[in-house]
């Protein structure tokens, strides 16, 4: 298990993971805060450190289009984007997943315009959560690195063949230096293995047609088949995590729980803000308040049953969303958590806070405020507001 300890940014870690995976083709277009990944990667290309053929396209729409073509052709493909770039890819995201193409994309989460904002926020990833891709979310650079490597194995698994988006917070993680452990190149190469083709377009002896028109007579069967494949994803994610633990010593599940087993109040939160929350939970524990946390990792497909089981014993839970779902009553993560505990007779009281939009800092005092409120709800059973924005000017 030769591992190297380094101090790098999230983007650098992801770029290094991509170098180690060494894909056949990549197509990309610059957008902050993801640009840096591809800049670093193209320097690997220019210096002969990878075999990857780059396609430096004229838009993200073409980036994803070219990734689709390259993946259908029959090889390993990756790209990276954020925010407006992901929005521009929108129609192709469904085509990539509907065509069952195992493309891996690093998404560096950033707010959506308008107003224009380049900072960390989950609106981009949340907007694309139901497009048939697998989504893995990452708290820190280490997780982003580890998820990137595992993403290829999950995407390319013969029972799955679906694209995977790996998410990390823009700037907060992408541009901050952390201590992380790199696997050695050989271990990563072995772990991802040789790419296995499935119906490659370049097999001219066995011509295939990709992208048919499917009328009402069969369309629904196609969509159901996609849904069925989605249901196999959690099992594969866990298998891949087990193999990954063997080479890294690092354990991954469908989600992470922190001091949750005996907790009475809990936070559910994605990505980097989970780290801050854990520190505050420790303080509350020291004060005798049984607080815990759940941080989703596999966000699509969402492991409803497992999450429900993990949360059902709590008295009060706050779901913190770094994106709002305009017009819906609650944030997107809240709605998933609510669905996962809906079936239980005894279940926690759920509240929702919207935080950190457009890179607004999530501070320990925000977690404190929420945990105090949860403790009060647990005691009295009374809720003042089910949903509100925190850390915002009134």
């Amino acid at each position, binding site marked *: 298990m030769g591992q190297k300890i380094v101090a790098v940014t999230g983007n650098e870690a992801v770029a290094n993971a991509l170098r180690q995976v060494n894909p056949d083709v990549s197509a990309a277009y610059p957008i902050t805060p993801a640009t840096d990944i591809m800049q670093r990667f193209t320097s690997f290309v220019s210096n002969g450190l990878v*075999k990857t053929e780059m396609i430096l396209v*004229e838009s993200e729409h*073409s980036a994803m*289009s070219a990734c689709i*073509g390259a993946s*259908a*052709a029959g090889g390993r493909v990756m790209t990276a984007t954020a925010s407006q770039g992901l929005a521009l890819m929108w129609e192709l995201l469904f085509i990539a997943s509907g065509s069952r193409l195992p493309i891996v994309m690093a998404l560096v989460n950033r707010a959506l315009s308008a107003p224009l904002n380049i900072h960390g926020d989950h609106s981009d990833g949340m907007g694309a959560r139901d497009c048939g891709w697998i989504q893995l979310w990452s708290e820190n650079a280490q997780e982003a690195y580890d998820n990137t490597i595992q993403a290829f194995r999950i995407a390319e698994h013969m029972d799955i063949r679906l694209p995977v988006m790996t998410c990390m917070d823009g700037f907060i993680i992408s541009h901050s230096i952390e201590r992380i452990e790199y696997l050695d190149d050989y271990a990563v190469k072995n772990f991802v293995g040789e790419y296995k083709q499935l119906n490659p*377009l370049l097999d001219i002896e066995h*011509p*295939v047609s990709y992208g048919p028109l499917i009328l009402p007579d069969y369309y629904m069967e196609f969509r159901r088949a996609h849904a069925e494949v989605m249901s196999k994803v959690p099992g594969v994610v866990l298998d891949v995590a087990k193999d990954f633990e063997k080479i890294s010593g690092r354990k991954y599940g469908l989600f992470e729980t922190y001091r949750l087993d005996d907790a009475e109040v809990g936070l559910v939160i994605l990505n980097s803000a989970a780290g801050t929350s854990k520190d505050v939970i420790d303080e509350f524990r020291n004060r005798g308040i049984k607080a815990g946390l759940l941080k989703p990792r596999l966000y699509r497909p969402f492991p409803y049953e497992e999450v429900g089981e993990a949360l059902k014993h709590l008295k009060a839970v706050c779901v913190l969303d770094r994106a709002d779902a305009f017009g819906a009553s609650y944030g997107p993560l809240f709605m998933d958590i609510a669905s996962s505990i809906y079936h239980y007779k005894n279940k926690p009281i759920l509240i929702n806070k919207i935080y950190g939009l457009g890179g607004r800092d999530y501070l320990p005092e925000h977690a404190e405020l929420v945990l105090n409120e949860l403790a009060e709800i647990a005691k009295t059973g009374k809720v003042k507001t089910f949903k509100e924005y925190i850390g915002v000017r009134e």
Partner: protein
Amino acid sequence: MATPLSLKELSKKELLLTAGHRMCSGCGAPPVVKMVLLASDYPVVASNATGCLEVSTCISEYTAWKIPWIHNAFENAAATLSGVETMYRSLKKQGKIDKEIKFIAFGGDGGTYDIGFQSLSGAMERGHDMLYICYDNGAYMNTGIQRSSATPLGADTTTCPAGSVVPGKLQERKDLTKIMAAHGIPYVAQASPSHWSDLMKKVRKALEIKGPKFMNIISPCNRGWRSAANDAILLSRLAVETCYWPLYEIENGVTRVTVKPKEKKPLVDFLKPQGRFKHLFAPENEWLLKKAQDDVNAYWERLLKEEEFTKSEEVPKEQ
């Protein structure tokens, strides 16, 4: 050796777009595609933009394509194929594939002149080894004959219908062939299915040239042109003979008009058989008819001058 371009020899070759597709009978697009694929002695992998050709040739469990074929979306046939071609180069470099394969993208005028223009321009600029073919029927036919930037001046479409105030399309066509030539790519050509041998020679030539190539091929649509179902080839011939659709190529900056009609027919010969131009023959629209003819004359004159002018740039063939 390449299959000679004789009907006798070509008739022995397999058609790679099979019968049984669902395009309208008499549509110009299937013969265009068949000619293009017949011209190649190399295996071809194709991409196809959303449009009539795409929706009608690969429905549910059926496909009319005997070659590897990919449809992605409407505006990205070029970007998609650039991905396929790049994967081919990658796998070839790695020794995982050794065959010589050619890459051809097919797009309608809407998918090429308009919504797919950026994708096309980008792919050409990047220098992918591929041939992009636009089958130009002058409107968004698949969605019901809406105006595109390839729609001819004065034509009646469902979004610029000829009415009592607006006499059809008021703008001239975008000159896409020249715009592609301005990309400085090694080969650009216009062709017509009426002149099959000219068309196939151009495809052949294009496939032998490394790098990005573009061909614009007129493709009559009886539904949209409001013409007789059996007139596709006749109309494409009249398009050439009236100089509405000049047959020419631009190879490394040198323009060559490949077919010069012995006698240049009046434009009305091409317009008359088409219902989409019917209103142009009303007295109040005479000016438009005249403008259409003037435009064709001017364009043709300019093209001949361009041929003359660029001749000097021709690189002498090695003996």
